[in-house]
C-alpha cells in the first residue's frame, strides 16, 4: 500500500544521509517495511528487529488508559496465547506468524467498530 508522506527532517539526519550517500526515502522505507508485530512475536529468536522495537517503544510511550486500552489488552492476551500454543507445541514459526496476523486483523476490526460505535453515538445525540 502506497502513501505519500511529508516530513520535516532535521539537519543532523539530513547531513548523515548525505555523508553516507543514502536518501531519506530509502532509509525510512527500509524501516517501515520491517515493522510487523505478528512477525516480531512469532520469531523470538531473530535478533536485531529494531524497526518493530522502535515502534513498540513508541506505543509504550504514548500508551493511555482508556476504553481502547481494554480492547488492546484483550487482543494482546489473545495473540500471546495463540503464539505460545503454536510455538511450544509445533515450533512452526510461519504458522505462528499467520495465526498471529489473523488475530491482528481481528483486533483491527474490533477497534474500528468501537470507534464507529462512538461516532454513531455522538451523531445520534
Amino acid at each position, binding site marked *: 500500500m502506497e502513501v505519500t508522506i511529508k516530513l520535516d527532517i532535521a539537519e543532523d539526519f539530513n547531513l548523515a544521509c548525505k555523508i553516507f550517500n543514502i536518501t531519506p526515502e530509502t532509509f525510512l522505507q527500509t524501516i517501515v517495511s520491517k515493522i510487523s508485530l505478528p512477525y516480531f512475536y512469532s520469531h523470538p529468536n531473530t535478533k536485531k528487529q529494531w524497526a*518493530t522495537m522502535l515502534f513498540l517503544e513508541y506505543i509504550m510511550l504514548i500508551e493511555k488508559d482508556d476504553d481502547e486500552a481494554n480492547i488492546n489488552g484483550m487482543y494482546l*492476551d489473545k495473540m*500471546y496465547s495463540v*503464539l505460545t500454543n503454536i510455538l511450544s507445541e509445533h515450533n512452526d514459526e510461519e504458522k505462528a506468524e499467520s495465526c498471529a496476523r489473523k488475530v491482528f486483523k481481528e483486533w483491527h476490526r474490533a477497534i474500528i467498530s468501537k470507534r464507529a460505535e462512538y461516532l454513531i453515538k455522538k451523531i445520534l445525540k
Partner: protein
Amino acid sequence: MNNSNDLLEIPLEFRIACLLNNFNIQDVLQAYVDHVSFFCTLYNSNLPGFSEATYITSEYSVGNKGNRQQTDDDKPAINRLVAVKYVRQMVALSFKTQLTETVRFKQSKKMVNKLFSAIASFKYCPEKLYIDEESMLIFTKDFRIICEIHSIYPKPYLEHFMNKVSWAEAHARVDLNADTMDSGLLLFIKLTNGLGKLKRQEIEITDAVLEYIDEAEQLRAKHYLVRNLEQRIAIYREFFLEHYNRIINQNT
C-alpha cells in the same frame, strides 16, 4: 536459630539485583540499616528512603514479636519510664506540622540519642555484624533501639528486607504500570536511582556484560504481549538469572 553467630544468608534474587546494578551487597544492606528510623515508626512518614526502610522493618516487627530472653540478672535492659518519656516527646514532635518533615526528623535525633543512652544493654543487636570475612555492617542507634524494643535480632530484619528485593519483579511492575509495589522493592529502586549515593562497582566489560545490556534494553518490547504480572515476572526472572550466571561465569 536467630543466633547472631550464624552468617547472614544472602538470597539469590538479592545477589542478582545487586550484581546487575553493580552494587556491593554490603553497601545495599548498610543503606537499608542507615535508613531505618525510630522516629518514622511513630507516625505515617513521607521521607524518601526512610519511610520505606522503616516500613519494611515495622512490618516484620509487628508479625514477629520475639520472645524476650530470660537473662540471669533481673535488671530490665530498658528503663521503661524513661523510654516512654522520650517516645512521647517524639510522638508530640511528629504532630508539629508547622515544621517541615525534614526539620522534625532532624530534631528527633536528639531524642533518639537520649533514648539510646537510656537503654542499659543491647542484648539483641551488636554494634556491628560481619557478613563475610571482609565486610561488616555498622548498626545505627535507631536500628539497635528497634531490635531491643522488639526483642528481635538484626539478622531476621535484614533477611526480611533482602527477600523483598527482586530485580525481575521491579522491572515487571514498572513495565506493566502496576499500581502498587512493596516498600522493600521501592527502597531498592530508590537506591538504584541515587538514594544514599551508593558507589557503583567498577566492572570488567566482558561479552556477557555487553550482551546483558543489549538484551535488557529489548526486554520490555519483546514481552509486550505478556500482560499478566505473574507471567511477566517469571519471564524476567529467568532472563536475569541467565544473564547473572553468564556474567559470573565469565568473570571467574
